[in-house]
């Protein structure tokens, strides 16, 4: 298993290189640049701006420069400065030298911030929201799916699946403002927008204080974001469980006289989870790295909007940073999923 994980992590580097080349090529191929303005900037100003960000170098040099900054660790005796060009995610002093790694570069749009600042300040909030939304999705979706499968073709099944179809077909862009309006504006039970945690975070990503002041902000967006995924999970759970309970080994278990509860939980459910776990990997990566619509509706200062605004702004370092971050999350989440497979189904072995 250890060798398998090591191999997969090496494979991550290859994935990141490929993703970075494609993203880099695409974003430079798109017409328009970071300094296109409604009021066109004078040519001299654009020259000065291009020089500052090395955008006047040939593309392959720009790419090599980027890879060098982001992927290759640096050992240097020069102490870090306050320059935005000089912000490394990992920067530790070992004896007389500095070990510095991962400089994602400055944002062209926010002139006093770097992509690393965005990771440090905004990613934890998206991760908090995404994790809670995922919990909501599981807590609503799984019981609904199990209930529907066990009581197939009864009123409970129809009800569960109606809720699932409702969840899939009512997007956040409808549900979000609706929740804001009912519970924020009309009833005033919850704050309509905002987020209850701010830097610095515990362990870099947890809110420093849990409590009502945190959760009152999180309830509506977590539900709005989680409901859609809960529907997907409910339907997958139902379909998979329906298939499993018709397997021979379930009949055997029943014939042995096991209690129905044990049959379902230990034999049927565990074996039917594989499709659900499969979807959880990408779902986790998508929810945790931020969701544009939910964050905009609820005014949450997360990462999600940077996936979209960086592209409209042609903010090259932010585009690269967000895409690579997403790729890392996706690959690692899928790796975890594969490891969980082996636990769920002992027949799966990777060595």
């Amino acid at each position: 298993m250890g060798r398998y994980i090591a191999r997969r992590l090496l494979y991550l580097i290859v994935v990141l290189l490929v993703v970075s080349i494609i993203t880099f090529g695409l974003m430079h191929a798109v017409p328009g640049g970071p300094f296109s303005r409604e009021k066109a900037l004078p040519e001299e100003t654009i020259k000065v701006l291009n020089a500052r960000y090395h955008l006047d170098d040939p593309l392959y040099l720009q790419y090599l420069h980027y890879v060098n900054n982001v992927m290759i660790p640096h050992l240097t005796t020069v102490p870090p400065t306050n320059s935005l060009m000089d912000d490394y995610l990992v920067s530790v002093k070992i004896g007389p030298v500095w070990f510095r790694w991962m400089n994602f570069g400055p944002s062209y749009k926010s002139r006093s911030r770097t992509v690393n600042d965005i990771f440090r300040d905004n990613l934890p909030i998206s991760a908090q929201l995404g994790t809670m939304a995922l919990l909501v999705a599981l807590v609503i979706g799984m019981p609904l799916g199990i209930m529907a499968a066990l009581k197939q073709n009864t009123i409970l099944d129809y009800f569960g699946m109606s809720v699932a179809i409702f969840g899939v077909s009512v997007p956040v862009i409808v549900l979000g403002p609706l929740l804001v309006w009912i519970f924020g504006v009309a009833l005033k039970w919850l704050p309509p927008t905002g987020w209850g945690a701010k830097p610095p975070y515990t362990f870099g990503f947890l809110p420093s204080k849990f409590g009502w002041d945190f959760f009152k902000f999180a309830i509506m967006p977590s539900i709005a974001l989680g409901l859609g995924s809960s529907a997907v999970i409910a339907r997958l759970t139902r379909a998979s469980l329906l298939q499993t309970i018709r397997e021979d080994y379930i009949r055997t278990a029943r014939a042995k006289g096991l209690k129905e509860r044990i049959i379902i939980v230990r034999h049927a459910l565990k074996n039917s989870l594989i499709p659900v776990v499969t979807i959880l990997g990408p779902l986790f990566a998508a929810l945790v790295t931020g969701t544009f619509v939910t964050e905009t509706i609820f005014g949450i200062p997360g990462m999600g909007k940077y996936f979209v605004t960086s592209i409209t702004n042609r903010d090259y370092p932010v585009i690269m940073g967000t895409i690579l971050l997403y790729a890392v999350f996706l690959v690692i989440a899928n790796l975890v999923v594969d490891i969980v497979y082996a636990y769920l189904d002992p027949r799966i072995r990777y060595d």
Partner: protein
Amino acid sequence: MRKFYVIAGLLVIASMVLAACQPKTVVETVIVEGEPQIIEVTPEAPAGPKVLNVNLGPGDVPTLDPAVAEDTSSITIIESTFIGLTQINEETSLLEPGMATEWESVINEDGTETITFHLRNDVPWVRWNGEAVETVKTCDGAADRMVTANDFAYGIYRNLLPATASPYGYLLSMVLKGAAEFNNGETEDFATVGVEVVDDYTIKLTFLAPAAYNAQIAGLWVARPQPKWVIEGDDCTEARGERWTEPGFFQSYGPYTMSEWIHDSSLVLVKNPFWPGSDSIPQAKIDEVHFTMLDEQAAFAEYEAGNLDAAGVPLADIDRVKADPVLSKELVIAPNLCTYYYGFNTTAPVVNDVRVRRALSMAIDRQGLIDNVLKGGQEPAQWFSRPGLAGAPTMETHPDLGVKYNPEEAKKQLDEYLAETGQTADQLDLTLMFNTSSGHQKIAEAIQQMWKDTLGVNVKLVNQEWAVYLDTIKGKDTPQIWRLGWCLDYPDANNFIREVFAVNGSSNPVDANGNPAGGVMWKNDKFEEIVKQAAVETDPAKRVDLYAQAENILVMEDAVIAPIYWYTRVTVTKPYVIRTFSVGGHELYYKWDINK
């Protein structure tokens, strides 16, 4: 598990009810049902600090650094924290004293203009120390660091320094002697730039040519002091470089200073008690201004929930706000100095004939568009330079200037062209391009219909993503008809008509050989002459007259653009807020008050 069903079921039912009802009915029902259950109650404010809650707009404030600011939210914060040499009144656009209490102008023999500014000597730099606003001391700790002429010179220097890569340095390059050469790296000697520090409280700026707007530009954010010791460091201050505007490092001297900035989320300005106050820039009356960074719809929800004291009204809510007995009283539609227009590529087929352009422009029912599509009380634009700018004609003085909705004349103009070229209206191949946005789409569709109804022409609509679009309409393949808007940098007609449409203007670019390279692709020698003359004209009445002539050429004689509407801002403000309405879009919160 039953609980989940209950919650889910309730959501289903709630959504169905809401979908079926008119929004107004729901307001009443839900409020009535919810009233006994309100948990969050803000206690009656005791005589604590006065706090104002407002919204800055979606996304993080890009910067608080006057040297690199270019957008509305950044400049809004800078306007309250750094004061310029001169000040433009946010409502009247008249020039007022800022840090300079008086100034005098001399025209030099070589045709340049030198303005000597006399600064006030009682303004210290301040910072937020985590608990209170304190003055910044000199290194020996003996005295406050005062804002001096050197700080102004440094601010201008930093803005023009190529390494700073200031997006708006060109405003200075345009007017200040030697600034362009320093900014584009031809010389590294700042002494060649027309900035002279006479003593701590006197600074002389030399401008390329006398102009009505020189003193205005000298007061803009591009020429504001910056704390050199924080940026570059000195004996008692650590150098913070480009991070000097972050919380904890930030220093300023205006009526407010920044105490907290949670990126992408909120920013807090606190009153600076050391700002001495003057007639044009009084001491702040509100102790703290809390900014959120929400998109318009979310901000409006917060306003309705009582958490914001002022907000913009989203287009979708305007009708409801106008009909609501409470909100309609809090609604104010104020002018905003921007113009929305359609430009013509005067070299493209069909629209290269002025009669076609005139016909298209005259066939637009601007009032109808405003009443039925825009709904924000905008004003039909008859020309480009928005009334309210210095030098711009106004509807009172020039009611018949420019272009108006005139279907008969439009038809006549087009028929002449059609007869001459032997075509029918539906044979004309015309394309209107705009950047992808539902707002622009609605306007374009309405105007497309007007053109069809009045002239019988079928205009194709094409849209492109913003940055792609900008490349298209400023390049050789500029479509026949395209849309843009323009807002002020400084409130003078020069910033509109000349900087946009004169040769090499923003929407009339030229290539290296001086040939038209995009936008309107237009040159009219008489127009060039008039706008040049108007820039240096000192008699205000004559200036307006010159600009009126130029506008007539732009929108009627040559019909290079079809002006569509002049912007307004649709806002709601709680009744206890006493405020001003800035025509430039940068609110001056130190002039606001709360009276609960």
